[in-house]
């Protein structure tokens, strides 16, 4: 019986399997990174909104001027509030580094967050990543090579900014889908690097959000107007 020799063709099956497993690994890792980014983005949104409320809780009242957040105490209060909501939302098993919290001003003209600028009226919460290498073709190629070589998993970076503007809470998040048209729940509108996430009333200052909020919050807190769903579960 002739002996089977090791030819280049004999390793084709192994190479084929290796390619499939590599592509599958990248697919699984990408979807895992997508899940991680969704969890982190939601957590950052909640933390930023809660932090902005802490910012509004402690204000200075200069004579004859609009109230502004106290810069001496605001940072501690906001950071504590942000950490509280990060701990409430992220699973204990999630190995996520502590978020980066920045206080500053939301520039309505430039439509961007100005870190450190006084008076404080906005809070930015950021998870992971370094700003210099967030996007670009080179970044994508590097990630692909790193994935194939197994050096590290995909790097997820999310950012959310909440701003107190005239009794309205606005949540801005980066990395959302651009949409220049009218916003509807779940959609996002991009402003440079920030985008408003799906809250129409707070995006463009549409008709009287205070009235909507007052109406809803009365039903949330008022004993006589409590809605049947609150505190209960509904399934369908």
């Amino acid at each position, binding site marked *: 019986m002739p002996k089977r020799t090791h030819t280049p063709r004999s390793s084709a099956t192994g190479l084929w399997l290796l390619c499939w497993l590599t592509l*599958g690994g990248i697919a699984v890792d990408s979807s895992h990174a997508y899940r991680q980014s969704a969890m982190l983005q939601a957590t950052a949104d909640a933390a930023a909104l809660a932090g902005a*409320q802490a910012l509004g809780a402690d204000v200075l009242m200069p004579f004859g001027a609009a109230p502004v957040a106290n810069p001496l105490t605001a940072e501690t209060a906001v950071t504590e509030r942000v950490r509280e909501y990060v701990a409430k939302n992220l699973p204990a098993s999630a190995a996520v580094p502590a978020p980066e919290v920045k206080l500053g001003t939301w520039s309505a003209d430039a439509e961007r967050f100005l870190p450190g600028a006084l008076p404080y009226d906005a809070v930015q919460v950021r998870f992971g990543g370094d700003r210099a290498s967030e996007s670009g073709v080179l970044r994508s190629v590097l990630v692909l090579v790193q994935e194939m070589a197994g050096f590290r998993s995909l790097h997820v970076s999310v950012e959310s900014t909440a701003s107190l503007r005239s009794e309205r809470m606005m949540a801005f998040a980066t990395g959302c889908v651009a949409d220049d048209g009218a916003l509807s729940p779940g959609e996002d509108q991009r402003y440079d690097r920030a985008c408003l996430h799906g809250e129409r009333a707070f995006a463009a200052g549409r008709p009287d959000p205070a009235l909507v909020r007052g109406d809803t919050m009365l039903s949330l807190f008022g004993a006589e107007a409590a809605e049947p769903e609150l505190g209960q579960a509904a399934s369908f």
Partner: protein
Amino acid sequence: MKFLPTTHQGVHLPPSPPAAPARFLGDTRGYLSIEQVAWLPLGLCAVLAMTDASLAYVQQARLWELARDTAHQVATGRMSATESMRHAKAALPSHGHWHVSIQCLGTDVLVRISSEDPRPGLTGLIAALDPDTLAAEFRMRLTSATPPISKAP
């Protein structure tokens, strides 16, 4: 003396081919296809598991985004709990049985979305390994919990 078949004219004939099993084992043609077929079940299982994991992860990400949106609507007063429940219902996948709850806990609104499907995904393997795969729980602070500052924009 070894007997060699000859023709009637005395010319030696080539040796006859070996028997069928020996001929099969000795022939290397097509071995690549046989190897691939042998590995195919393992490869298909791996692809199935990876597809299942990817689908489960993407679905959980969508659940998180939906829980975030729902909590955000209630927390910022954009929608009432009834409206946000309707919004969540419309946004959930039509297949499967979903359980949604919206609770007001002190200063927070808590949204829980979970699947009651015993075998979600293609095989249910990922959900069996990680029960939290098809569930999302999100908590957001109500914006009216602290009085808003009356600062001019």
